[in-house]
């Protein structure tokens, strides 16, 4: 049931992606430093959370729908440069979604969390925001860094 749900969620995401304009992958952005950064750490194994798929979304306040902004995969260091440009980083509610279930699955393990979504509010978009994810198979932590 879990795998089916995960597949259906992924295909829904793809369906939504196909209908979007202005969507970027981290690699396409030749942007200078993104004002929003992330870092995934696999605390269960004491290594970076490398090659984890993730996506950044912004809530449209008039429709309360999530707009997909960026998709990407963390690099060997668990980071994903070029998440967003300063111009696009307007004050709003954002969501970072990390495909943790897929990640642990690729390591041949199960996980309690099929994915992790972190929803946060940006009011002052001139600051830098670091939204890391420290995760193991059975726990995770995040904090607002800079």
């Amino acid at each position: 049931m879990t795998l089916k749900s995960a597949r259906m969620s992924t295909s829904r995401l793809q369906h939504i992606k196909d209908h979007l304009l202005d969507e970027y992958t981290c690699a396409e952005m030749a942007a200078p430093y993104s004002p929003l950064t992330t870092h995934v750490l696999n605390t269960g194994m004491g290594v970076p959370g490398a090659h984890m798929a993730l996506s950044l979304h912004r809530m449209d306040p008039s429709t309360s729908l999530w707009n997909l902004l960026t998709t990407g995969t963390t690099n060997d260091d668990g980071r994903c440069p070029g998440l967003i440009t300063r111009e696009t980083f307007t004050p709003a509610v954002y969501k970072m979604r990390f495909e943790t279930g897929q990640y642990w699955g690729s390591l041949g393990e199960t996980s309690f969390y099929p994915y992790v979504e972190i929803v946060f509010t940006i009011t002052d978009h001139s600051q830098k925001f670091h939204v890391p994810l420290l995760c193991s198979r059975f726990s995770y932590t995040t904090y607002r860094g800079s």
Partner: protein
Amino acid sequence: MSSTLPNSPLTTYVLNTGDGAPGARMALSLHRLDSLLVIWNLVTVGTTDEDGRCPGLITTKAFTPGMYKMRFETGQYWESLGQNSFYPYVEIVFTITNPNERFHLPLLLSRFSYSTYRGS
């Protein structure tokens, strides 16, 4: 949610790590994913007590295998304390394969960070 229900197989505990106190009177809700329709069904709504706990979340009978979501109204909580917070709400999505076990899903929370883990 009734406190006359026998022990729920799923429990939670909210801790306000910023103030070193239980996360009392925080609104929360439990949802189960309908895997056919791929929509979330609301199972329970509640509010944590003075100790940050919320007894009677779900009955053993209703606790079937599947994907669940606990949503904590953290933004409202911090507002009621006169503070702002980085997270307007926290949703924790988890998979239950063996509903015969006990699952403890705590939320350790400050204005700018949170943690959760699978306990029992």
